[in-house]
C-alpha cells in the first residue's frame, strides 16, 4: 500500500500521491514540478546509487533519502488509458 519512489524499479512510471517532508524541504520539490498527481519515472541511478528521475521532461537528481519520502502509486492500465 505505502509505496515509495525509492522502491520503484528503473523505467517504471508512477504517479506521485503525497510528499512526506517538512515544508521547507517540500517547497523546492513542488516548485520543480514534483507534486501530487505528477508522473515520475526513475530513469537511472547515479554511481552512488541515488535516483535520477524524469518528471515533466526534466531530469532531476535526488538523494535516496528524499526518494524514500515520496509516496507514489502504480499506474494501472485503466488509468493510463483515461
Amino acid at each position: 500500500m505505502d509505496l515509495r519512489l525509492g522502491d520503484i524499479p528503473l523505467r517504471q512510471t508512477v504517479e506521485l500521491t503525497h510528499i512526506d517532508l517538512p515544508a521547507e524541504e517540500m517547497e523546492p520539490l513542488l516548485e520543480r514540478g514534483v507534486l501530487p498527481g505528477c508522473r515520475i519515472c526513475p530513469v537511472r541511478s547515479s554511481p552512488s546509487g541515488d535516483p535520477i528521475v524524469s518528471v515533466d521532461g526534466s531530469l532531476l537528481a535526488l538523494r535516496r533519502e528524499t526518494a524514500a519520502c515520496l509516496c507514489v502509486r502504480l499506474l494501472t492500465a485503466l488509468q493510463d488509458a483515461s
Partner: protein
Amino acid sequence: MGDLHHEGDPAASGTAVLSEPRDAPLVALIGPPNSGKTTLFNRLTGLRQKVANYPGVTVEKHVGRVQLGGERTVDLVDLPGVHGFSARTLDEKITRDVLEGRMPGLHPPDALVLIVDSTRLEAQLMLVEPVLELEVPTLLVLNMWDELTERGGAVDESALAERLGVEIVKTNARLGTGIEAVQAFLARAAVRAPSQTERTLTNVPGGVALPMMDAFAERRRRVRAVVEAAGFVPPRPSGFSERLDHLALHRIWGPLVFLAVVVLVFQSIFTWAVPLMDGVDALISGSGEWIATTLPESWFRSLLVDGVWAGVGSVVIFLPQILILFLFLGILEDSGYMARAAVIADRMMYRVGLQGRAFLPLLSGYACAVPAILAARTVDDERDRLATIFVTPFMTCSARLPVYALLIAAFIPDEPLLGPIMGQRAAVLLGLYGLGIVAAIGTAFLLKRTLLKAQAGSFLMELPPYRIPSLRSLGLRLLDRSKIFLRRAGRIIFAVTVVLWASTQFPRVDGGPPLIDDSLLGRTGQLIEPAIEPLGFDWRIGIGLVTSLAAREVIIGTLGTIYGVEDASDDSLDLMAALQRDLSTGAAIGLLIFFVFALQCMSTVAVMRRETAGWKWPILQFTYMLALAYAGAFIAVRIF
C-alpha cells in the same frame, strides 16, 4: 581596490545607480534557472555576462543598456533564475527584491520578459501566474525553440497567448532568432508612474487558505489545462544526452570518466602549453634584449629591462597555461557535464556535511575564488553557505597556476610516471590540487561539527541536456580571460615591479645603485627573513610572499624583478636557474605547499567581508589558512 577586481565582482558590474528623473524604462529578465536569460541579455545588450549550461550561473543582478535604434534606449536587468518566489536562497532574494521594487538603487521594473525553456513548457509555466499577478506589461519568451522542434515537440503559441492573455515570442537566444520581436516589445516599454509600482509577490497560490502541497497542485492543474488547450506536444527525450549520461553516470565508467577528464586537463597544461610558452618567452626576452641594445645605458633602461620586462614578463609567460585551463573549464561548463559531476560528488559532500549544491560554486573556484564565493549564494542554508565560502579559497584558483608551474618546472624532473599517460610534473600538479581538496574537506568537516553545526541539507539538481559548446562562446571566454590576465599583469604587477625596482636603487652608493643586499628592498627583506627562515626561504622569497598578498601571481613578478636587477649583468632572464641556485628542493616544495594553503588574495578577503557582512569570517579564514600554510611549509622542508 580598482585594480584588484576579478571577474564577476558585483562592485564592478552588478550595481547600477539609475538617475532621477529616469530617461529609460527598466525591463527585468526573469525565468527559471538555465532557461537562457543571460544568453538573451548578452544578445540584446552586447555585454558578455557569464553563460553556462547548468542552473544557478547568474547570482547577481546585472544591468545593461539596449539601443533600439534612434534615440530609444531601455535598461535591461538580468536576474538569477528562480522556480518560484519563496526566496530561500540569497540569489533568489535578489530576483524577488528587484521584482517587488525593493532593490536599493534600482527602480521597480516597468516591464518584464519571462523567458522559459520551451522543451519543458508545462513545468516552466508555473511561474506565469505569480508573474502576471504583478500586473506589469509582460512578454513571454519561448526560448530553446530549436530544441523543441528538433525533438519533435510543438505548441500553438497563438492559442497559448490567448489563453494566458500575454504576448508571446519564440526564440533561439543562442543564434538570435526571434530577437527582433523581443526588441519590438522593449521599444514599447514605457516608464510607469511610481504609484503603480508597489507590489508583493506571493509564492504559495491561494495564500494560507490551502495547504501548500494542494495549492501548488491546483496551480499545476490550471497550467496543464492551458498547455493542453494550446496543443503542447512534449519533445522526445534527447537520445544524445541519454547515451552520454549512460557513460557519465555509469556506476563504474562514470567515476573513471571523471578521473580521465581530470588527468587530461593536468597533463595538457604541461604538454600543450610548452610550445606556446616558448613562443611567448621568445617574444618577451627578444623584445627585452632589443630594448636593452637600443636604449642608451641609463636608469630608465634599467627600470624598463631589469624591472618591468623581467617582472611583468615572467608572469605573462604563463598565459598559455591559464588559457588551456579555461578552455577545459569552458568545455565542461558549456557542455552540461558540470551538473553530472555535482551528482557524482554529492555523496562525498553529504559525508563531509556540505550540500551537494555547494559543489558547483566550489568547482568554479578553480577559475577564481571571488565569483565562486558569490556563487555560494545558491546554497540555501546559511550555515552551509558560510562553510562553503570558508573552504572555497582552498580550491586551486588560476592565479596559483603560474606559481605552481614555475616551481614545478624548476624543481621536478620532466620524466614519465605512468608511462605516456602522465608525467611526474603533471602528477605533482595534480597532487597540489588534491592537497587543496583535502584541506577543504577536512576544514568543512571540522566546521560543520563545531562552529557551523547543522544537518546536511537536501540535494536537488536539474540535469540540463548536453549541448555542444559553440566555438564562438569558447573563443570569447578565452579572449576575456586573456584580457583579465593581461590587465592584472599590466596594472598590479607593473605597479609592484616599479616600486620594487625603485627600492633596489637606494640608498645610492657613489651615485650608483647599491648591492641588492644593501638596498632598501634588501634591508626590508632581511627584516622579514627571521620569520621565514625556519621554512628555508631567504629574504627574496619573503618579499615575494608579502607582495603576493595583493594577488598570488605577483610573487613571480617580484622574483623576476629582484633577480632581474641582481643579475642585470648576464643578459638572459632565467628565473628558474636563479631559483634552483637559491632554494633547496625541500624549501621549493614547502613554498608550493604554502601557496596551496595561504589566503594571499586581497580580493577574496574583500568579497568575504561583503558576503558575510563583517570582518569576523575573513579574519578567521586568513589566520587559519596562514597557520596551515606555515605549518605545511615547515614540515615539508624537513621531510624533503
